[in-house]
């Protein structure tokens, strides 16, 4: 719980921290466009390389970015595997014929159970998971002693594999960029930046201040709610709930015992917040002054120029390639 980084600001000092939040948001948007314009795996690889250069320059350790990526690991693997399995374009690279017979299915289940059991004792759950999957696949494809009752052929096509890597890279880049933004920007600054960036939308009667306020409050409350969840876990643990153990039936009760107080506390918090805002005479949509004024520095201009260039280059590459 403690290591979830989504939306969490981590104090530090580098050019990424000194940038104007408006510029950060615009630059992020420009880079998103650039990343979506790219349609070549090679260029996408270069973009990833760029990110890897940016991280040490901005004094952000890979570990923090990894903590940002970790909650999405499952999604990333899922997309990757599905692309490989179901994309049948391009040259056929190889096939893997899986035959199922009672013996090898039983052995595979055994391997899976062993992994489930062993993962408690090792810290490399993810790596051992990959080893486990590889083991099961080898077993199913190589060993068929008894009468088989079915088979399935995994066919991997060149296009599918490349596209899967391509999608993976794109997702990693996008999530990393967003993580960099939230790590280096205080929620209040982010909120202010967002409000200013969205200001032109006021012409078409969009209430940008309220949107910025809603987003700002949500970001602000993520760590608070995580802390609350931790406290609830401790309070329930002292009533005998063991969140690490238990059968599925127990798990349901455990999760309910966490979620119900969570909901109640969130509603209480929002009620209190609304009262506090009203007590300070908050009126939605009224023009207001800010304690911190944003200042545009030469650094900001430079960053905008660089990101715009990157976008133009990626568009150019797409048209001319």
């Amino acid at each position, binding site marked *: 719980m403690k290591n979830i980084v989504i939306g969490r600001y981590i104090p530090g000092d580098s050019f990424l921290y000194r940038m104007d939040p408006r510029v950060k948001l615009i630059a992020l948007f420009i880079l998103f466009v650039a990343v979506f314009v790219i349609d070549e795996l090679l260029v996408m690889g270069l973009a990833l390389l760029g990110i890897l250069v940016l991280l040490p320059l901005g004094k952000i350790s890979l570990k923090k970015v990894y903590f940002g990526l970790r909650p999405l690991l499952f999604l990333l693997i899922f997309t990757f595997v599905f692309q490989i399995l179901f994309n049948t374009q391009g040259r056929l690279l190889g096939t893997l014929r899986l035959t199922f017979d009672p013996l090898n299915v039983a052995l595979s289940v055994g391997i899976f159970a062993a992994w489930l059991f062993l993962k408690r004792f090792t810290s490399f759950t993810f790596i051992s998971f990959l080893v486990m999957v590889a083991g099961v696949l080898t077993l199913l494809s190589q060993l068929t002693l008894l009468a088989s009752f079915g088979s399935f052929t995994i066919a991997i096509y060149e296009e599918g594999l490349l596209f899967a890597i391509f999608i993976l890279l794109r997702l990693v880049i996008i999530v990393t960029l967003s993580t960099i933004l939230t790590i280096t920007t205080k929620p209040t600054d982010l909120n202010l930046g967002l409000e200013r960036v969205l200001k032109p939308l006021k012409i078409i009667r969009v209430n940008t201040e309220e949107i910025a306020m809603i987003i700002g409050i949500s970001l602000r409350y993520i760590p608070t709610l995580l802390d609350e969840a931790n406290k609830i876990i401790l309070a329930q643990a002292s*009533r005998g709930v063991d969140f690490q153990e238990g059968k599925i039936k127990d798990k349901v009760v455990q999760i309910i015992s966490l979620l119900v107080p969570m909901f109640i506390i969130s509603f209480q918090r929002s009620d209190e917040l609304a009262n506090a805002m009203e007590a300070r005479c908050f009126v939605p949509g009224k023009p207001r002054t800010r304690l911190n004024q944003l200042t545009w520095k030469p650094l900001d201009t430079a960053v905008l120029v660089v990101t715009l260039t990157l976008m133009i280059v990626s568009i150019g590459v797409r048209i001319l390639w």
Partner: protein
Amino acid sequence: MAIRLHTVSHTYTAINQPAVHALKDVTLTIDATDEFIALVGETGSGKSTLVQHFNALMAPTSGTAELFDVTITAESFKDKSIKKTPIRKRIGLVFQFPEYQLFEESVLKDVAFAPKNFGQSQADAEEKAKHALSLVGLDDTYYARSPFHLSGGEKKRVSIAGILAMEPDILVLDEPTSGLDPQSQKMLMDVFESIQRTTHISIVFITHDMNWVEAYAKRVLVMQSGELVFDGAPDALFNHPELSVWKMDLPDRKKVLNYLQSQFKLQTPMDDFTQLLNAINGEGDQ
């Protein structure tokens, strides 16, 4: 000895933030029977962190915590073969805010939740829950009510009953009287005292109110910025020269006594009002 902490330190660490030393070399023992301990100290002095070490919700960063026959250290805490739940059954911890634990649809079910977790049958658990609720002064009209529609004080009582129903050997209470009206505070403290007197279990409570310390506690622990600075009888604490250094206050009774003594310029220190009145009257007679 039920709880034996030996040079326990706890440091909170977070990514890129300065470490907070919440506990520094705390050594103390608490018996399984007949203790009535008040834990006092200013806000942020480490009281709550300390009590979470009592039932293995937290592990010391360094040092050892012997809880009944289980030894908890930074390493053994991570070892999943050492079960912490049995410790938590024997050492019941009530958190300060009942909102963090109430979740069932009725008061009775919520109180029966803990005994059921510790393997009691539905009927037994409800029996224990009813008993616990009667102890904290909630009668059968409360059984079917939703815990979320109760007043703050009633919620607090339900949350305390939720731990009492486990029948712990040691009861640890994090600010049991906070947020209650004076009468309910007194009523709850009386409940704890009578539980202590009849069942002889040990009770540890955190409080900021010296009147409760004077009226109920047999022993006081004083925390200051993570260190245990005093461990002894309440009277010894009230006469301790460093009382104000620890940001502690005297109980109201002591303040009145001291005031009257200074007003009547009595030299010998006195500890109860009869003695004082006699001294004053005697002076008047002369």
